[in-house]
């Protein structure tokens, strides 16, 4: 189907949200979605979602785009994620409505 897309999901420390958004913006994708109050656990310990102590919380970014853009986005964020932690996964989806 021609409306096949890739759905990229990134989860990392909240501290990197602005940086990542800038990097993603620079790839020229048409849009993305952000969640700001995300808790979790990973290799870098537990994030209980609490705001005080230096912000033990994560952010979540989702980008829907075609495969070529998806590669660009992944390359753009690879540096930050592989250095600072978090995950980035990609899955298949289909546009149904968008304009």
């Amino acid at each position, binding site marked *: 189907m021609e409306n096949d897309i890739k759905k990229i999901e990134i989860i990392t*420390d909240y*501290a*990197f949200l602005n940086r990542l958004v800038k990097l993603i913006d620079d790839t020229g994708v048409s849009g993305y979605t952000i969640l700001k*109050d995300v808790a979790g656990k990973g290799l*870098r*310990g*537990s994030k*209980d*979602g*609490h*705001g*005080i*102590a*230096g*912000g*033990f*919380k994560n952010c979540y970014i989702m980008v829907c785009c075609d495969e070529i853009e998806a590669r660009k986005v992944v390359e753009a964020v690879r*540096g930050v994620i592989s*250095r*600072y*932690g978090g995950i980035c996964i990609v899955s298949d989806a289909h546009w149904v409505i968008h304009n």
Partner: protein
Amino acid sequence: MDIEQLLGNFLAPPVPFFFLGLIAVLAKSDLEIPQQISKFISLYLLMAIGFKGGVELHHSGFSTQVGLVLLFAMLMAIITPLYAYWILKKRLDVPNAAALAAAFGSVSAVTFITASNILQDADIKYGGEMIAAMALMESPSIIIGVWLYRKYHDHGTNAQHMDFKELVREAFLNGSIVVLLGSLIVGLVSHDKGMQIMKPFTGDIFKGMLSFFLLDMGVVAGRRLGAIKQAGLFLIGFGILLPLFNACLGIAISSLIGLNQGNAFMFTVLCASASYIAVPAAMRIAVPEANPGIYVPVALAITFPFNIMVGLPLYYYVLERIHG
């Protein structure tokens, strides 16, 4: 105020609410303060304390002593991470030593605010310059920490390096500092008129809000207690002894530049406290190899409660001996 009265202070709000939070976590209660409420109250506290500081500063004016306070505050913020790093390097790797050193070079606004509480109960004043000193001491150690880390840490991925200018900007313009300094300036400019307007909000309900915040701090600190066990005796010792050592320095400097009892106490508290908010946030980005599971709990679950329970009364007692 004798020592009994002083200890009595710890039975009156706001401090006991910190312990309530701690106990709630230890008893595995599901007590949880919503995250946005924490953020709100911490901004409120910064606004209130900054504003009050500005008004006081208007009254005291900018004397040579004010200049000296700011100078020595800056100095302490730069030197502390250096010798803290030197000690920590004996047991920790470079990134963790640098990050933890940075935390101890900076300050804890909540410790400062709790200390101001003791003075208020004893009817002792302190100058608005101490608030300025707090703002000044918050960030330099971030720069020192990053400098130490980069100097001693060999890392292949140089390209990934954070832009240094960016880092400095972020360190000095984080939300806390902006609200603290901004409110100080508003207080300075609007002084008595402003105070009259703001007092019910920034003054009257202040201790209640602080009580609520300390309840939250207790919960957060309690959740980090587990990490302490992993940290081991060395870090527990460090989290107690460094503040004590810094307090001695603080008391010495206070005598040197002739601070009165109130200012000396607040200056000592600034030296003895460690940051668990601004510095960790910066270290997460600038020193990603450091483990926040180490540097946050030491500052938050050891040094903070130690200062609240033992440090503040002790520093107060010593200074009262000196000045009384």
